[in-house]
């Protein structure tokens, strides 16, 4: 569903992402691994529109999206979370989620003057949807708290709910397991599997190999900005080049 060809991005020096090509299959949970500094998050930013590639093309279900703004990419059905979660700290947990559904007519300022009844009705629906997904990630109890009170793991869950309420077809998760306590991590993994069963595709950056090996198929390996290999998790784990990329040549 997502096809990347020859993606390249530099910041003045040598390219951080160089000539990366891959295809994400519909309905797959694809893993993206690689040592620190391999360019994983930069690649995410290129996919989600936060960065513009120097070269290369990107197509989501046949629509070219390279160089599009993040809000346009989101509207086309691809959503992302951040490595360090970015809740809106002064807003309630509930409204963090209510923000996300696309195409709300109450976001056009004049409808709030001219058709307040329609906005109120829409808000009731959006609120129900938001509460549904907060329940899904287990944050209902905190719905009316400002997001700043959440723990790191809860913030990850909030970001997940915020993305899910928009019902995207493809979700990019940047280290969903980082800084999350083990019981919460198990919850997050369950949620990903459950959503995938309903047809949502995922691309997941993760350092937790247990998570990657159990969830992701296939796995892409990025090293020094280049796609090192792509394959089944077992094949990736056994590959000499991957071990060398992580540990340095000569050790393996």
């Amino acid at each position, binding site marked *: 569903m997502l096809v990347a060809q020859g993606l390249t991005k530099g910041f003045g020096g040598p390219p951080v992402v160089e000539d990366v090509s891959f295809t994400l299959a519909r309905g797959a949970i694809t893993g993206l691994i690689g040592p620190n500094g391999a360019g994983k998050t930069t690649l995410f930013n290129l996919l989600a529109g936060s960065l513009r590639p120097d070269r290369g093309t990107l197509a989501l279900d046949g629509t070219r999206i390279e160089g599009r703004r993040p809000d346009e990419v989101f509207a086309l059905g691809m959503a992302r979370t951040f490595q360090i979660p*970015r809740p809106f700290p002064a807003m309630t947990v509930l409204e963090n989620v209510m923000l996300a559904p696309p195409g709300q007519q109450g976001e056009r300022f004049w409808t709030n003057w001219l058709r307040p009844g329609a906005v109120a009705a829409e808000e009731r629906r959006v609120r129900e949807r938001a509460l549904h997904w907060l329940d899904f990630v287990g944050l209902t109890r905190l719905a009316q708290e400002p997001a700043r009170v959440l723990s790191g793991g809860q913030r990850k869950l909030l970001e997940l709910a915020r*993305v899910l309420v928009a019902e995207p077809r493809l979700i990019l998760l940047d280290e969903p397991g980082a800084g999350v306590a083990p019981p919460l991590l198990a919850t997050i993994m369950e949620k990903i599997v459950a959503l995938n069963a309903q047809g949502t595709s995922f691309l997941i950056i993760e350092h937790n190999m247990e998570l990657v090996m159990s969830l992701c198929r296939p796995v892409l390996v990025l090293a020094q900005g280049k796609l090192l290999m792509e394959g089944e998790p077992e094949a990736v784990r056994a590959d000499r080049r991957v071990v060398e990329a992580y540990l340095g040549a000569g050790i393996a």
Partner: protein
Amino acid sequence: MDALSLLSYLAFFSVFAGIFAIMALGLNLQWGFTGLFNVGVAGFVAIGAYTSALLTGPEDAARFGGFGLPILVGWLGAMVLAGIAAFIVGVAALRLREDYLAITTFGIAVTIQLVALNATAVTGGPFGIQSIPKPLAGWLGTGLAWNLGYLALVLAMLGAVWWGLERLVASPWGRVLRAIREDEAAAASLGKRASAFRLQSFVMGCMVMGLGGALYAHFVGYIAPEDFLPILTFQIWAMLIVGGSGNNAGAVLGAVLVWAIWTVSGGALREMLPVAEQARGAALQVVLIGALIAVILVVRPRGLLGERATVSRHAAKVSPPPS
């Protein structure tokens, strides 16, 4: 002071407080709800004041206009022109982040003030524009009754602006503004086109400031470039910070309080200081307001009335969590 002159003074005070409250509401939309650091308030107020004065004033052979139009047309025109100016500035400058936007808007306000000072053929130059018509003056005269009548008009305008803005900020639209203020990249990642919302907020806020300028012009009946110096921007900011940015009630409360402190301290300084020291005494007022801001920021950093956590008035109630 007899009762009548006290009433007259109170009316005079309240008209100004109401006008400042309108300007503070405009700034609150920009800064309090969207995080736009506009330090050019005086410029947009000036555009409103001059526009309405030129549209409604009697013809003057020495300069452009006036056109003798109804006063409501003048107020509308003030908002429209301030909005157009804000649109042009916004398209060019809203991509800038906080401090750079502040520098840019400050420069624009100074430029507008200098244009008012030098474009004599339009603005009357340093002498400004006189005999700006006073609404209902034919009916109420120019004494206390007119002051009270004008106060009613200002309060009606304040009420309309209040209603319009409260409807907007406590809505999904306001929620997007808050999200952009909190984290623009995260808002964009959730499909919100930040630049469009920032521009809407900026233009609307400046239109409200322009209305404030028009109300000022028709109350005083005379405007000159020196009415729109950066000190005015400073006063409006002080009102918003003291009252509580992100809360419209706070903006209004701050406007009344700071204006009260300003006038009372001004009166006291005039009484206490010898004539030769009066000019220096005026600077003490600024020091006083500055000290007040410092105290508020230490004691109540969110202002007297802080913002509510819930933005949309539709999101306040929540059903009890399933147990």
